[in-house]
């Protein structure tokens, strides 16, 4: 028995505008560029891909199933710039064949820096999913599939999830393979689904690569590879960016045709089916416990955090923005909090990545900057402004509090 479990990641960040040290306003984001990119991706990817998925579901009478993780930052931009995409996602949700996963609303790295912020963003995202699609997510995926035992335990202790997803990296698997359901080390309830990176990347990265020995890839061939998993696993977890369809792989590569033929090719084998992550978790027992003491991700060949934390600029920017958390939250100013959170999106730190040569091509996807240095400068200028704003608001808050205190307490404060 082999279940094919598709999960697609859909995300766009709020890109910053060019912000110099001489700028003083709080228009941090490049609305024009964000609108332009959002609409472009909607027309090249989200709309045609959603249409295709809907057709597949209808054609196979509910036997074709998929899952999405859609970030809060994308949902906000879709509402603003391409609301028709949201209606098609809504239509997908109505089919009963589509599961929506939970993640940090702002596609952030908060798991690494602040448990509070991590929980709050997950909460916010779950609420958004429920409101938009009428589902309470049961499976969590962290930004860029960043994961460790500690992250899993943090997620389990929220008490609301049954599963978590990460990369099926060779070094965490050892002799095992990604096609079983596992238990995170130190967890009692949560189940772990691992990405089959070989088969996922055959679609996401290699599909149009003419230098690849398997090019051109068609649905029959791919289904044959899936069939080979029979006997050595229960599930083939195909996790990839949704932008694979039409953006990373353009329509003229045949990616849409591939995807429209894939379900019938997979289902031709009587032992195969499609399942959503929750269904996989419910259907199969835990095969083993997986230990992941160090952080991993699905990025690049290293499967580590070096794309976001690989140089001093990145670690500094991340440290500085998280250092602001208490100050921002103490102001009670919702607008400041939202600005701050939009800056937490991992893409801002990804743009600062300097390891160009091996993995650089992927990093160029909608990177608004000429160089990682420009991106750091821009981010820090914005952060500097935000930090100044927070300090001012903080001060105003203090004054206001003091004004509302009884006069005796006020004089006490002053003497302190």
């Amino acid at each position, binding site marked *: 028995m082999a279940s094919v479990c598709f999960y697609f990641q859909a995300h766009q960040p709020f890109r910053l505008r060019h912000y*110099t040290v001489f700028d003083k306003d709080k228009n941090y984001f490049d609305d024009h560029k964000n609108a332009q990119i959002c609409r472009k991706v909607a027309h090249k990817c989200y709309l045609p891909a959603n249409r295709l998925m809907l057709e597949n579901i209808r054609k196979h009478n509910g036997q074709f199933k998929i899952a999405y993780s859609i970030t809060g930052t994308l949902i906000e931009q879709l509402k603003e710039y391409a609301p028709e995409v949201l209606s098609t996602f809504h239509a997908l949700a109505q089919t009963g064949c589509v599961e929506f996963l939970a993640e940090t609303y702002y596609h952030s790295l908060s798991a690494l820096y602040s448990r509070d912020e991590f929980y709050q963003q997950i909460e916010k995202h779950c609420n958004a999913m429920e409101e938009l699609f009428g589902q309470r997510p049961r499976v969590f995926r962290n930004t860029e599939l960043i994961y460790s035992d500690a992250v899993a335990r943090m997620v389990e202790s929220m008490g609301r999830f049954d599963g978590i997803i990460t990369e099926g990296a060779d070094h965490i698997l050892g002799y095992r393979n990604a096609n079983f359901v596992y238990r995170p080390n130190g967890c009692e309830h949560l189940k772990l689904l691992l990405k089959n990176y070989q088969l996922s990347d055959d679609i996401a990265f290699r599909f149009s690569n003419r230098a690849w020995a398997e090019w051109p890839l068609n649905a029959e061939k791919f289904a044959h590879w899936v069939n080979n998993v029979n006997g050595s696993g229960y599930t083939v977890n195909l996790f990839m960016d949704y932008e694979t369809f039409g953006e990373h792989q353009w329509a003229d590569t045949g990616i849409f045709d591939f995807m429209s033929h894939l379900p019938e090719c997979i289902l031709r084998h009587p032992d195969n089916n499609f399942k959503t992550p929750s269904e996989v978790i419910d259907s199969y027992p835990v095969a083993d416990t997986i230990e992941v003491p160090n952080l991993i991700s699905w990025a690049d060949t290293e499967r580590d955090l070096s794309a976001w934390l690989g140089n001093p600029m990145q670690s500094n920017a991340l440290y500085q923005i998280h250092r602001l958390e208490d100050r921002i939250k103490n102001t009670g100013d919702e607008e400041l909090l939202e600005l701050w959170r939009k800056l937490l999106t991992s893409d801002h730190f990804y743009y600062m990545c300097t390891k160009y040569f091996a993995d650089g091509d992927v990093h160029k996807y909608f990177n608004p900057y000429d160089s990682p240095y420009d991106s*750091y400068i821009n981010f820090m200028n914005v952060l500097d402004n935000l930090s100044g704003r927070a300090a001012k608001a903080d001060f105003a808050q203090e004054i206001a509090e003091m004004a509302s205190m009884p006069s005796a307490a006020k004089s006490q404060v002053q003497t302190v």
Partner: protein
Amino acid sequence: MLKTEDQQNGNKMNVLMLGWEFPPFISGGLGTACYGLTKAMDQLGVNITFLLPRVIDDSCTSHVRLISPQAKNTYEWQENSKYASEKLKNVKFRTIDSPLQPYDTPEVHQQRLEQIIERKRLMRQGIGQKSVSSPKDSQTNESAKGGDNYGRNLHEEVHRYAEMAADVAASEHFDIVHAHDWMTFPAGIAVAATTHKPLVVHVHSTEFDRSGEHVNQIVYDIERKGMHAADKVIAVSNLTRNIVIDRYGVTPEKVEVVHNGVQRDERWQLVETGIEADEKIVLFLGRITMQKGPEYFLQAAKKVLEAVDNVKFVMAGSGDLMHRSVQLAAELGIGHKVLFTGFLRGDDIKKIYQMADLYVMPSVSEPFGIVPLEALGNDVPIIISKQSGVSEVLMHALKVDFWDVNEIANKIVAVLKYPPLQITLRNYGNFEVRKLRWGNAAIKCINVYKSMLQPA
């Protein structure tokens, strides 16, 4: 494996190089580049005969042995030379007795030309008018004509050099003629014509880089003639290649890009300066001429000082815009924050690098630009103009449009304000600059030679 092959192929090749200056007799980037390239080719086993105008300078004769049978001299390298450790096995130097000014690099020539023009202009204007006129003023067109006399003089000298070069070349054996910059182009044409050997002209800078839009027509004509007569043109950057194609009408197929390398030597070791600056230092190092964009540096400095206070701007170098720059700093009200050191050499350059937090090169037009590489080699992060050839080969540098004063200032402030930026630029930049080797440039040149010797 590759190296052996190149050596074998290189062994078969004999090149006559026509140069203008060569270490230790250098006054600009041209000599540095010729030295780097020649040395690397030497190591790849290419036989080079390097033809130079005669140079006799008392302070330098200890470094070389001059053998002068009649008018034709041969240099040999001495053990005590600064460059002795890098002996050139396959290189022979020949000099030509020529009335030419040995240090007349195009830059110096042009600089002098501009000084003459400026003096004439000021005389014409009279003392009462102190207005600083931009080069676009109509007056300079007029005075440019005055400069022509000077150029015509040099023109004749350049052609005399050409005749003599052809004469010397007759007694040499070589397969290729390789001429560096316009002053040697007529010589290159003459030698190629008399010996029927293929000609490569190597463009280290063009008249447009040196003079903006106010080109000296005679120099331009010499450059153009050389590029058109050549079988191949080597440009030091894509920027220069585009100028060669667009401004000189050379067919694109003929023009190859060979980026310069950088020479590692003892200058890159740290020296103890004992200076502890509580102020940040932003450095401009180079000739203070129109080409180098000193006014943009000062305009940016003015903006920077609106945001940051504990910073000084050092302008190291001299040039025809030096006085105007001092004046401009005063006019901008930042005279107390800008230091002019004059022309620096040797240990003083080391010290200034040691002190500097940032090097800025806002060049209006820079065919390549070796100084930024030296700055990186000395652990100083750099901001360079996008209008420079060197920006094509560096990733770990901040890049700006020379005219975008606001952005230059923004980036200067960022480097001063965010230490991780300085650290990352410095560390990665230093690493990157070590990879820019003359060996790669030499291999590319050899490939150009091969393409000419074995026509498809």
